[in-house]
């Protein structure tokens, strides 16, 4: 039976520390870009700050980690890619990006409703000698291709190899945990197989506090969020964007 990997992020527990962003970049050999800006950076996992738009004591803020939502239905990036460089893996539900096929047209970036795709504007580079600290399980991507979260696919490979070495067909769920999930100090990100109704993540996704961003467009994203705050849940269908000056801050009012 094929899996449908996804995650549920408890926004009431996200403190916006940024550990997930750092762990993601280190795991996936995403280069540090000193010349980049908020617009041109590579952040497959990006934590945005949102507010209820009020000021003073009534102001409330929350943090929303945004990454590829791994849309299940009519996946927008898959539909527009002229190179077949994006596909939804039937066995896992992971939206895969193949940099070798990508020609850098960036149609997928335009099509993605979540702005979760990033273009490699520069040759990947690290300070001299620092390539020794790169993760050997992940290849470095070239300038001119689009990148995004692939749910730490290298870790899934490792889990499969481990299972195969012991003669098993199925992986142990404990062996496949994406870096952001592992790094979260509050355990706000729960990862699992959403197709398995007994999986804790799947159960979380069905809770009344769970929601998905822009669910109305019908792409069936596999990243869920949950919050007890009504104003946070209302953000899911917000049509307001983020201004160039505020960078990653989104206001809901």
């Amino acid at each position, binding site marked *: 039976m094929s899996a449908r990997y996804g995650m549920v992020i408890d926004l009431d527990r996200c403190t916006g520390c940024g550990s997930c962003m750092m762990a993601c970049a280190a795991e996936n050999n995403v280069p540090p870009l000193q010349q980049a800006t908020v617009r041109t950076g590579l952040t497959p996992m990006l934590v945005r700050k949102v507010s209820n738009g009020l000021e003073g004591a009534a102001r409330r*803020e929350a943090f929303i980690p945004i990454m590829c939502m791994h849309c299940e239905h009519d996946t927008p990036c898959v539909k527009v890619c002229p190179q077949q460089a994006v596909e939804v893996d039937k066995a896992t539900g992971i939206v895969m990006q193949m940099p070798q096929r990508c020609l850098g047209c960036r149609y997928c970036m335009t099509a993605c409703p979540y702005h979760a795709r990033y273009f490699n504007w520069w040759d990947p580079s690290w300070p001299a000698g620092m390539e020794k600290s790169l993760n050997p399980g992940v290849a470095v991507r070239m300038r001119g291709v689009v990148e995004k979260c692939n749910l730490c696919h290298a870790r899934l490979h490792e889990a499969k190899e481990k299972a195969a070495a012991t003669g098993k067909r199925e992986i142990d769920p404990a062996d496949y945990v994406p870096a952001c999930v592992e*790094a979260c100090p*509050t355990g706000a990100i729960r990862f699992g197989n959403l197709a398995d109704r007994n999986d804790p993540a799947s159960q979380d996704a069905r809770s009344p506090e769970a929601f998905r961003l822009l669910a109305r467009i019908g792409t069936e994203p596999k990243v869920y969020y949950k919050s007890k705050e009504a104003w946070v849940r209302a953000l899911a269908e917000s049509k307001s964007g983020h201004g160039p000056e505020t960078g990653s801050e989104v206001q809901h009012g």
Partner: protein
Amino acid sequence: MKVTRRDLLVWSAGAAAGLVVTPVPWKLLDDSSIWSQNWPWIPQPTRGPVEVKQSACTLCPNGCGMRLKMAAGWPVGVAGGSSHPISRGALCPLGFGAHQLNWHPERLRTVRRRATTSSWSEAKAAFAKACSEGPVVIIDGYPGRAASSVLESFNQKRNGSYRVVLGRETRALAPYEAWSGVPASALGYDLENAQTIVSFGAPLLDGWGPPGRFTRLWAERVAGAGPQLRLIQADGSLSRTATRAWRWVPVQAGCETALAAGVARVLLEERLVLARGPMPPLTLVDAASQTGLTTDAIRDLARTIVAHPPAVAIANDDNPAIAALNVVLGAAGASGGIVRRSKPATSYVGADAAIPSARAVLIDSSVPWDFARQTDAEVFRFAAWDGGSSKADWLLPAPGFLEELTDVPTAPTSAIETYAVAPSLVKAPAEVQSAAQFLSSIDPTLTTAEKIIHARCEDLFRGRIGTLIGRDRTSVAKLDSVQKFEEQLWKGAVWVGERSRPDGLRCELQVWPTAATSARPESWSATWPAPVLPPLASKLYKESSLREPPERRNA
């Protein structure tokens, strides 16, 4: 043969149809794409056998447990060590890029004397000469380590001064030391048993103590595990901790002292607490006008604090008024409050205190880069990275991340004693030396840090108390030999002492303290004492606007 127009059309149509069905052009396109993405200047990860090692982070005194993925002998990934009893698998954001630091462009590799290249022999000669000419002050930023003992021993032999740069968490415990005689370094917060925590600007969820300790506890309680934990954050702005707190009390910045006095006055006037303490001289009206709150809001806050005991107040820095509030609350020396750890600890003299006239000042690499004292003495500054402008006369390259064997004593805010060892997992460049190695080369009679660690392990083993927590939990009393004890520590296990009785701390307070400092705003990377940030930190403040850009030059 004559080529007709018809032949040309047929040939063209055939070629077009053939192009569609033959794989050659598609294969060429694919190959050229792959070829163009494998330029020789694109960095290639190190290949080699992969293994996982457990250790502890040595970047700051919190000593969080770490799990390092090593390839061909180099660390290629960092994750939190889930078995660590204090950090519980969490790291600060910077910890995830710590393995890159040893290749940071600002890594120090040569001895420098006032911006000119020098040598270790010249530095040793200059320091030895200074020692023979007058007293020496040694400043440590991470006290309690075996290396710290080497620094102290060197000083004792020369009647010099040993000073410590204390973190803000330890500075916040200084008033209790003054009132009880128990060293601040022996005190901790029993957060696990508290049900109401009032933070006066302390960033409890953003860089206060080991990142995993309170954030894990808070998250578990938010999720409904254990009794409810009410986190009340009095803050001048909607900080990260305030956004997630059970209640945010917006006060004017710098008015924590007045708020503490106002709350204590209500507690005492309305007899809301059993413990007795001195009445603050500040009236409730004055407290309200200073904090920007109403008198009713302060009364409500006081009643809320005592509604779910045990309650404890936490200051962001040395603030006697907030410590006095804890005395009034009965939180000093009580379960869920400020407790004394089981082991007696040394009372350190802070580096903020006046430094006597000295011939030379030696600053260990653990001291935050921005620490600077006005002195006429010759300054020998050890550092692994160059953080920018420095007033040091000598800049001496020190070992970087996990390049030297060190031990990890108890984290500053912990309520229980812990001890761990961080072995040298990365080969250090030949040209670096730690301050302890430097002093040992000048005075060969000093005991080395390695021997001190061995002696400490023997002491803990002979004590027969506590538990070793690694992959398994093993009582020290059940271990056969000190070799097995040490072996476990070297593999990443952590020794945990027994929880102390909370009544080991008694504070005598007759008069409400007047001298107080207000909480100082701290940079998000303030708890990390090294002068540079991992390059990947650009994701946090440059490639996103999640964090404010750090003030340090070489961030």
